[in-house]
């Protein structure tokens, strides 16, 4: 299904309204929704994030086979894929969500105009994460996470003795780190 406003992008936002007892639906893309929410009284007061979110929950239920096909065949020539997480343009348009931090670089072009419409500025001017100890703690956490993963695998393979060793390591890190 294409966006009812620009007829260009796939519609990823579906708004339903009851007007005089009649159900009306509006199907638009994220870009047009951002533009429209600034000026249109129907969309004012809708929280864009909320709309984007609703979409990810609803899309599987509301979509019939025909639309699924449309989405998967939409603009294959422009398909960008994030190397880090595997997210691609289709998934981004479908959910309005990004797959990882790296996606912000991969989809920068699409994002730039969308961000301008959503926000009051293009640059972050708020708080920043703290200093050096932040990095140290981060390393510890990643180490615990990796050990946890190893532990899960060992338990799955029923290698309980090795698992016990890893579990002790994790506990030591959690307690002393």
């Amino acid at each position, binding site marked *: 299904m294409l966006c009812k406003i620009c007829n260009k992008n796939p519609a990823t936002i579906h708004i339903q309204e009851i007007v005089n007892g009649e159900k009306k639906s509006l199907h638009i893309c994220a870009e047009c929704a951002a533009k429209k929410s600034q000026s249109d009284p129907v969309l*004012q007061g809708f*929280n864009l994030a909320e709309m984007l979110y609703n979409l990810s929950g609803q899309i599987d239920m509301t979509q019939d086979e025909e639309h699924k096909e449309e989405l998967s065949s939409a603009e294959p020539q422009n398909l960008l894929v994030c190397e880090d997480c595997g997210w691609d343009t289709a998934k981004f348009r479908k959910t309005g969500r*990004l797959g990882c931090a790296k996606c912000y670089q991969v989809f920068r072009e699409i994002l730039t105009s969308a961000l301008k419409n959503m926000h009051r500025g293009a640059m972050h001017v708020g708080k920043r994460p703290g200093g050096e100890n932040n*990095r140290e703690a981060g390393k510890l956490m990643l180490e615990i996470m990796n050990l946890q993963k190893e532990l899960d695998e060992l338990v799955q393979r029923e290698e309980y003795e090795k698992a016990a060793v890893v579990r002790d390591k994790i506990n030591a890190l959690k307690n002393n780190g």
Partner: protein
Amino acid sequence: MPESENNVEMLLSNKVSWLSDSGPEDDIAISSRIRLARNLEGIPFTISADPERLANTMSAIQVAIRKAGCFNLPLDFNLIKLKELDRKVLLERRLISREFVAERYGAGIVVNRDEDIGIMINEEDHIRIQALKPGFQLREVWEAINAFDDNLGKELPYAFDNDLGYLTSCPTNVGTGMRASVMLHLPGLVLSGQIYAVTQGVSKLGLAVRGFFGEGTENLGNLYQISNQSTLGESEEQIVDRLSTVIRQIIGHEKNARQALLEKKQEFLLNHVGRAYGILRHAYIISSEETLNSLSALRMGVDMGMFSSVDIHTVNELFVIIQPAHLQKYAKKELVSEERDVFRAALVREKLRTIDKNA
């Protein structure tokens, strides 16, 4: 009883501090809330992570929370281990989002026993911190959550970009990752037919207005949540200040509307409030819709000094505990809709009777 379930029982025996404590302007502003969205560096966002990854992320965050020591009395909930009814209790207390009620792997929350601050783990973002205070005190909430975030940030590497700020799964949250909101009780503006103009005006300023109960345009209990939409290009303090300015104006409008009703339509106002009180005190069957709207009228009456014997915080608390999941927990069994209406009426009568005795 497993820990998570136990903790739900503990919450139910709690008074919700942001509803039962006093705060500035709390005749009209019920509560102030801020949430911050954070993600961990080098780990895919929740939406693209596999179940194993989600489980690992959750335990890593739980460890960091303990080490940061940011809670006085932390209560842990592993949502998948909870029954649906218990998850709905958490939703009705605004501790989790609607999305979190569905069964989700690796989803958890940690909340302070007082319910003034909590963290959702693996919601749309890895971490969503939320802080609440009674009344209109966004500045104070920001100070609390800012310090909390600093502490937690010492233990966890946040995904952050120099230009775009805190990176979030949805681009509508990127930057500060902050959503600040105030819940306002606006029966005066609704009764005098001005609410539409006010909400339109607020939307024009780039702020979002949403009913607290009910979906879309249907709004029960005259409770409105006003929040910022933009998260990029403004600092957290600027967002708080801009929102606070508008909230102050709306509170002023609501006061004027109430005063005008009192001066020009006194019988109408007294009738509206008195009938609501009568229904709440004496009904034996009452729907949640009628309860919420009657509670709204009663609350306004209490604010305007018509019922000196009724405690406003008990009225606040009733807004939460008359919801379906809470009722069924109190009844200790499943109740169908008709049974709930009977049980609800009994609970409301009992609560209001207790207040009168104390007076």
